């Protein structure tokens, strides 16, 4: 596979994952805010904004309209939903020949559908509805990707992009919630932990495992270490390790080893992590470590397979 094509597939997938995550957080938050007091909703929105944009916003009141506009439709906000979709589509267009018609057309249609949407037009209905529909279309996109593309090297680059992005997003969300739990003011309440599960599509899978008794320690255990749930760190790390073994099949062993060593280390950290060791403030440190290791894998992936100097292989 051309290195440039691998690069575009990887980023296309990262942006799709980011868009899906953004749409889900907005949909869940718009739905759940009606059940919260103004203070609680403000604190909760602030966590969403921070996890999606990295900005620690000092919100005075939960102006859902302005926040949604910024997170969803603001072209100046690099990580807005519309920008993530635009970037995913730009990357897809550059590797049009490596995608099926179904994948391209689903993504293209979704983007074209969202471009004319204004805040005013969605605010007169149930605002969350649009984002739920976006999620449905993104699930359809995921479905056609799974069922119409060959599960070869290109598909594994998509997997890598998806799961590296997912670990980053999930990590940030957990970090923000567990760090807030250490402070006395604005500490997440029962309802906030429930919403956190919903942010990660984890509410029902969690209750199946741990019953409806919602406790931060169990949430951390589930979202960090459950190997079967697709939005857990452990699950994503497993998929990354698997994908790394399948890409660049003909690359020289030395270059492969550089990437696979890092992946093995990350997998060991997650496989042998213990939630009891993490609870007293250690969740943030653990996540910071995982995130850092993902960044190293990203860099190694690029230097081994994509941006390597031609002189090294001639």
């Amino acid at each position, binding site marked *: *596979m*051309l*290195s*440039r094509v*691998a690069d575009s597939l990887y980023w296309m997938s990262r942006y799709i994952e980011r868009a899906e995550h953004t749409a889900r957080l907005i949909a869940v938050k718009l739905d759940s805010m009606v059940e919260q007091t103004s203070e609680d909703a403000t604190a909760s929105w602030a966590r969403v904004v921070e996890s999606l944009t990295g900005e620690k916003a000092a919100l005075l009141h939960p102006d859902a309209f302005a926040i949604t506009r910024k997170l969803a439709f603001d072209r100046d906000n690099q990580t807005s939903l519309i920008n993530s979709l635009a970037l995913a589509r*730009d990357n897809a*267009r*550059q590797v*049009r*020949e490596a995608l099926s*018609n179904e994948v*391209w*057309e689903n993504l*293209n*249609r979704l983007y*074209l559908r969202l471009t004319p949407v204004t805040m005013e037009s969605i605010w007169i209905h149930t605002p969350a509805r649009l984002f739920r529909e976006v999620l449905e279309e993104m699930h359809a996109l995921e479905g056609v990707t799974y069922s119409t593309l060959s599960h070869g*090297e290109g598909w594994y680059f998509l997997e890598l992009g998806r799961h590296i992005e997912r670990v980053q997003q999930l990590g940030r969300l957990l970090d923000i919630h567990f760090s807030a739990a250490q402070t006395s003011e604005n500490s997440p309440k029962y309802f906030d932990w429930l919403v956190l599960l919903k942010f990660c599509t984890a509410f029902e899978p969690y209750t199946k495992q741990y019953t409806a008794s919602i406790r931060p320690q169990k949430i951390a255990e589930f979202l960090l270490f459950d190997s079967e749930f697709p939005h857990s760190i452990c699950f994503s790390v497993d998929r990354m390790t698997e994908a790394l073994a399948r*890409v*660049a*099949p*003909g*690359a*020289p062993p030395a270059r492969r080893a550089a990437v696979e060593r890092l992946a093995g280390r990350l997998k060991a950290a997650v496989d042998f992590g213990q939630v009891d060791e993490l609870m007293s403030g250690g969740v943030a440190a653990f996540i910071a470590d995982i995130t850092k290791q993902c960044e190293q894998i990203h860099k190694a992936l690029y230097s081994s*397979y*994509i941006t*390597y100097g*031609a002189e090294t*292989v*001639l």
Partner: protein
Amino acid sequence: MQQEVFANTEDFGGPDIVAGPARVSRPGVDAPYANYELGKPYDEMFARDGKARLPYAVMDSRISTLPLEELNRRQQACEQSFLHQGITFTVYNDNKATERIIPTDLLPRIVTANEWDRIERGLTQRIHALNLFLRDIYNDGRVLKDGVVPRSMIYGSKHYRREMRGLPVPHGAYVNICGSDLIRNEAGDFVVLEDNLRVPSGVSYMLANRDVARRAFPAVFRSMGVRPIEHYPLELLATLRSLTPFHEDVSIAVLTPGVFNSAYFEHAFLARQMGVELVEGRDLLVNDNVVYTRTTSGLKRIDVIYRRIDDDFIDPLIFREDSALGVPGLFNAYRAGNVTIANALGTGVADDKAVYAYVPRLIRYYLAEEPILDNVETFLCREEKSLKHVLANLDKLVVKAVGESGGYGMLVGPHASQKERDEFGEKVRADPENYIAQPTIQLSTAPTFVGNGIEARHVDLRPFILHGVETKLVPGALTRVALKRGSLVVNSSQGGGSKDTWVLSQ
């Protein structure tokens, strides 16, 4: 007529059966043709007496019984389909980029089996002569020594590549992919307006148009015996394969300038349909005169490049050094015979306005045959007799400077003042070699859906010719249509669109 059961009618409306009593809709009188003007130009659908020509009869009975709203709906479904497939180009306005589709017209243009037979034979003959001509001028120059074509015209051409002199080209095939523009004159005969021998585009629109027109009129399509064109990518692949001596595991790539090029959709489309790599200049590198792509597993050799980049930009070491699209060292690899480039470099010398006028003579010279397809009548002012004729008829002719393009250095006689004609006449007299003249060209008209009815619009015809060991045309073409009433400009950059072309099997 049989009901269409298997057609994919999901987006495009119900089964397309011809129903209702036969009726006659007259152009210029009855709906939907109330504003259909029959003028001096040949009309593809209606004869001079206003009756629909035979090949259009089925189509006519279908569209004149469909309500306008239904035509509108199908037209929109076509456009929607183009939009979703990403068959668009980008327009920049107030720093905002808007994507527009290449306009497509619902109603197909029909070419009969006899007409196609002549086009096919004519264009095959023409590409043979042009390839022999290119081989000649880059080698012995026999045609120049024999005085058939003036030496100065070739060596002075900005598209002549002296780097190509004496370089062997596989099978002597310089032009492997050609898109010739034909028009139909008032008498109804197809004539050649232009040969595109460099990087002709449009073949993906031919295929995309077929895809939507077939769905818009499934039963009509099926009943008419339209010849298929879907094998074009396969034929293109076979042609590219035939250009390399390495036959095992040939590695082929389409070289594109990138995603911002207006024909990018086509480059990606062809690569995908052929199952070969789509590469940009930055994906390729040359080492020891061998071309490689950079892949995740390492470097991979490339044997044949179907390039969609102009000569000037292909290798900054040899041609334009400011080109960021090309591949440094590519030309040396080509010269060393380690890679085939299609089309070969330097083919542009054979498709400029001056050489065009010589093509009928080239056919006689190289093939000892009479041209099957005529040129548009062209007067070379460098020839005494023609010069006299041109100067005496400036009010009837279009005079063009051969080195210029895009409407510069041109006199449109019928629209110019006497003073302008006199001044231009002086220029021609002073430097006759630099000018050619043609009668004002009339393109034929074809029925085109315009929203509130069907009107006549001017069209041309661009078939695509493949030439490797064999010469092949898929039985189809891109019909470009000038969507503005009365306009003769079919270019998509200036309000032109396109429509499907149905070549009938009998």
